[in-house]
């Protein structure tokens, strides 16, 4: 059978990990919803998020959320491109753009989560 450029692999790993990340995402989403909307005061503001992000445990949780969601979404996008883009040149271009976007999103998200330090006043009041 013909195997086209870029995706010479069969997709068995991608298929399996998309299911796996899907299960993880479902669990993480339930926790996320419970924490955000069904416990505490039901209010979400900077102080609450700040307190949560001060904990390494929550940082890990959010990083895992970011990684799983990106993998899951990208695996899906990959398959859509595979289905509808038949020309090798276009394929390569769109795959590259997708990978670039994924790396960019992950970096942005990871930098935000990891480097977040509470009690930083971005806009100090003028004296």
């Amino acid at each position, binding site marked *: 059978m*013909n195997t086209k450029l870029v995706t010479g692999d*069969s*997709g*068995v790993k991608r*298929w399996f990990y998309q299911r796996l990340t899907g299960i993880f995402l479902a669990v993480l989403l339930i926790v996320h919803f419970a924490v955000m909307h069904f416990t505490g005061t039901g209010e979400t503001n900077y102080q609450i998020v700040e307190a949560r992000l001060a904990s390494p445990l929550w940082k890990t949780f959010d990083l895992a959320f970011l990684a799983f969601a990106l993998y899951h979404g990208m695996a899906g996008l990959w398959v859509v491109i595979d289905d509808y883009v038949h020309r090798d040149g276009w394929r390569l271009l769109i795959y590259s753009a997708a990978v670039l976007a994924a790396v960019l999103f992950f970096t942005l998200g990871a930098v935000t989560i990891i480097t977040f330090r509470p009690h930083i006043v971005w806009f100090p009041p003028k004296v």
Partner: protein
Amino acid sequence: MKVTFKIQKFNPENDTKPYMKEYTVATHPNAAVLDCLNDIRWHQDETLSFRRSCGHAICGSCAMNVNGKNGLACQTLIKDLKQGVITVRPLPSFPIIKDLVVDLDKFYAKFSKVIPYLNNDGPVPEKERIQLPEQQKIIEESTTCILCASCTSSCPSFWADDDYLGPAALVKAFRYVFDTRDTTAEKRLKMVNDKNGVFRCHTIFNCNEACPKDINITGHIAELKLALVTTKM
């Protein structure tokens, strides 16, 4: 009762593209679409071309698209269809040879890729190869496929890329992969372990809708995917 049919006609010798033609047939609610097509061909338009053979839903020749749904014309009764004009088209996404007759060469070529026959490298037994009833039960549903192509032609993944093996070939792969008397399962699994194999299936379930034999095709393909994940090759 009188029923109006709108049938897609196309003669590559005269027409540049397919067009719809209307026919009115005097028929009975219990008649099948195939009976009406026969009536039209015998009494109204002898140029109307379609495949048919047994008329009893076992040969798979008369698969076509009736009112937007793939199925066998001989199994589709007038009383089960929505009242009004009945639209008949050839199976979608296959090249049309004439009217309702489509070119299935590529379909059969893909079918033969999955080695659709029993292989056993072991010694030939004195009598038959034994299979237990519970082992037979696993493959029973998949053995009822009549190769009508309704499923493959209803699959959006196949519409998007006709390099896809298609549900019909994958059901046949399942039928022999899980047959306890067969010894070439690995070869077949390697064949379907391809992006144009099982992983083109995105569980849309159109094939299940179309199958005149009610085979759970999507389920069978999912079993193949699982086998690929769990088998070390």
